[in-house]
């Protein structure tokens, strides 16, 4: 019974792995294929690998700055979201005020509308501000959706820290703000890290807003990929090369999140 259950579990996991990994592996292989191997009508698993696609897109087509843009956008949006969202989440976790839960729910509803529905208004705002075609526009746009994530996640992390910790810090000589920044944030550090990594990934992967807000200057990698669809055909090898580079940080960060999301790292204050 137990044994057959185990075999079933392994079987299901194997299927999921094959389904999710095959396209990724195919993309990885494609990035090392020559033009003929890519366009061959029958799928080729064995071929003579080439490294031409990487320099062709990152150096000849000057896509290297796009990596930097992606990094700038994701990092800045993550920092901005945490800096604005964490204090808000702390207030939600600690104080009571009329309409608190309604306001909290409102943060969730900001993610309910299809992103495309606010893409055009956003574009008009940024045109008015003269920010279109800059990384700033994308940073702010990404903060709009990351902020609600931060508020929702961080409230739970703060709520797990007993109020007495804030009070102890105040008795020890901190101001209310000082207690939050110097004591509560460090104690919630695993939560902050997990939230930050999720924000980073969401921003890094985002395509729609970035595509609408920046055409050339400040393009992140995701927006760079459609540029490889040329009138003479799609440059699949180069698309795959960009995609491989674009997924690397996500791979790394996903493993980080996995470790940080495991709870019980902290909050030993009450148990004593």
């Amino acid at each position, binding site marked *: 019974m137990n044994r057959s259950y185990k075999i079933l579990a392994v079987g299901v996991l194997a299927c999921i792995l094959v389904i999710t990994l095959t396209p990724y592996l195919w993309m990885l292989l494609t990035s090392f294929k020559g033009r003929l191997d890519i366009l061959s009508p029958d799928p080729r698993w064995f071929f003579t690998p080439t490294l031409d696609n990487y320099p062709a897109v990152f150096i000849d087509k000057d896509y290297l700055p796009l990596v930097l843009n992606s990094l700038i956008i994701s990092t800045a949006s993550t920092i901005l979201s945490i800096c604005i969202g964490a204090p808000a989440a702390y207030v939600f976790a600690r104080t*009571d005020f009329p309409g608190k839960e309604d306001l909290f729910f409102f943060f969730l509803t900001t993610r309910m509308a299809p992103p495309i529905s606010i893409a055009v208004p956003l574009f008009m705002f940024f045109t008015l501000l003269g920010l279109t075609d800059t990384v700033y526009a994308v940073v702010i746009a990404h903060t709009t959706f990351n902020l609600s994530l931060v508020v929702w996640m961080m409230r739970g992390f703060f709520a797990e820290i*007993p109020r007495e910790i804030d*009070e102890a*810090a*105040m008795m*020890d*000589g901190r101001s209310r703000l000082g207690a939050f920044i110097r004591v509560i944030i460090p104690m919630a550090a695993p939560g902050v890290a997990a939230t930050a990594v999720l924000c980073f990934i969401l921003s890094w992967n985002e395509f729609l807003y970035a595509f609408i807000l920046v055409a050339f200057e400040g393009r992140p990698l995701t927006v760079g990929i459609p540029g490889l669809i040329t009138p003479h055909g799609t440059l699949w090898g180069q698309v795959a090369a960009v995609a491989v580079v674009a997924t690397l940080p996500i791979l790394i960060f996903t493993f980080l999140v996995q470790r940080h999301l495991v709870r019980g790292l*902290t909050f*030993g204050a009450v148990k*004593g």
Partner: protein
Amino acid sequence: MAVSFTEVTKRFADGTTALDGLNLKFDLGEFVVLLGPSGSGKTTACRILAGLEHPSEGRIEIDGRDITNLPPRMRGIGMVFQNYALYSHKSVYENIAYPLRIRKTSPAELDRRVKDVAELLQIGSYLHRRPSQLSGGQAQRVAVARALVWEPTICLMDEPLSNLDALLRLHMRTELNRLHKRLNKTFVFVTHDQEEAMTLASRIAILKDGKLVQFDDPRTIYRRPANRFVAEFMGRPAMNTMDGMVENGVFRSGQVTCRVQCPDGPVTLGIRPEQIVLGGDEGFAMKLDVKETVEPDTLLIFTNDKGTLTVRTQRDCDDLAPGQSVNIHFPPDSLHYFDAKTGERLR
């Protein structure tokens, strides 16, 4: 050199009144225990003194300085919390050192003071540990050390012993007593445990429904309770109280009949279970209902259709059996008289 609460009222947003015009004044150097049943406002009073709550009305002063609107950090008060509230991401050493780090104490001075207070509380060998590696008693000592290390004027303790097991609680109680004698600091201690209050306090403030009922040393609280509430609240088992009438110097209620020194009229008579005398020729007879042995004492509960009477005695009660009729005598010196309506002490 005193701390004073003047007409302090605290109403919470949900409409409850935790403190209702509290007036309390005590000297620095005292060990004051705030005692009361749950909902009496004792914790609120402590938190208002700490600055963690703001009174709706009234003033708090230390040495004549109005601190009502000062934030906690500017009051010179340390606090020990019931759940210890240690910083789990810092070592024991850093937990204790934290108030000094905030005050930018020089490294040498900081190290000396942390080690001194750790030695005082016998936690010197745990300094490198994390709070999660401590037992409840050790964690509580760390919390006390952290509250005392920067030498605040007043140290508040909000039910600090409630989370400890019984034996450890007794031990920590003795330690706190010793600590107070040694440091000569002002301790304000909140508890609902009358035994803790009796053993620790230089004076006990008994609160009920947000008001101060009595503020006296433990002996006076026990011997001359200000009203029926204090009389019944302090002492275990509780004081026997009986409503009745005095006619020609004789008190009569459903349970008892006895001679009293009290003017005629309705009165509430009180007597402690341990001061009732069994046997002899004086007094009246009552039927023994339950016998409980709590070595070395025996609790005898007498019942008739009008009520019960509890007696605590150290005499050998092997000759007594439930159902038996026993002669009971109230020594006149042990009687307490309370107003039948208000419950206030009569003399």
